[in-house]
């Protein structure tokens, strides 16, 4: 075991360093038009096997996962993987105070409940098919 006391720089070796809890988890996700999509509830990593196998290369982030985690946050536990919606990392345009995507929210599976409520409920209300004047 060896010890080094030099802090990691924020832009180390030509890249930017971020911590998962500090910079990613629970951040608001906005689409390319600035419309709120969801929050970052979990992250999918590639290259890690939990069966005791080795970890030869550094794992990478494959996707952002988001879902209805309100109840698990209040009462504990975890949402099943099948209940989380996947946004591939290729769709991420910028990481800052929020995560900004390169695509519109309409094209994402994560926003289907909002579209369903709009199409099946809101649109049946008189005046619900157009923006307020």
């Amino acid at each position, binding site marked *: 075991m060896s010890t080094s006391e030099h802090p990691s720089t924020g832009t180390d070796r030509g890249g930017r*360093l971020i911590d998962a809890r*500090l910079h990613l988890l629970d951040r608001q996700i906005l689409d390319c038009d600035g419309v709120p999509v969801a929050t970052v509830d979990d992250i*999918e990593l590639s290259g890690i096997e939990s069966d005791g196998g080795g970890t030869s290369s550094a794992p990478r982030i494959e996707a952002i996962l988001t879902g209805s985690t309100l109840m698990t946050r209040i009462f504990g536990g975890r949402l099943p993987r099948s209940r989380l919606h996947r946004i591939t990392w290729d769709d991420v345009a910028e990481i800052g105070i929020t995560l900004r995507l390169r695509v519109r929210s309409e094209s994402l599976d994560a926003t289907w409940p909002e579209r369903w409520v709009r199409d099946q409920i809101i649109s049946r209300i008189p005046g619900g098919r157009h923006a307020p004047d």
Partner: protein
Amino acid sequence: MLLTDLLDLPVHDHNGDRVGWVCDIRFRIPARPAASDSGGVASPEVVGILLSPRRRGSYLGFERTDVHAPVLLAWWIRWRHRGTCLVPWSDVDHVEDGAVVLDAQYRRESPLLSR
């Protein structure tokens, strides 16, 4: 594997002794070549795990060297996480169900993150 499968896991050394818990995961976002016109953010790769010897849970942002306020909270959080270090991912031997196991000669680097 999901990130939350790793967070708060106990960390064992090569002899099987517990040395702490995973309190965060540090990533590096590779710089895109200037000629690249695809835009977006390159897929971050894992740099290492932040290993806290005493506490599970977050560092609450006080791992950044330029964050010192409020002073009492900063002092308390840093005291709670004293002994925390960054273990490079290359020094992680393997991840098994319910624990992260380190190499025999794992390195302990500063957990601080300067901007």
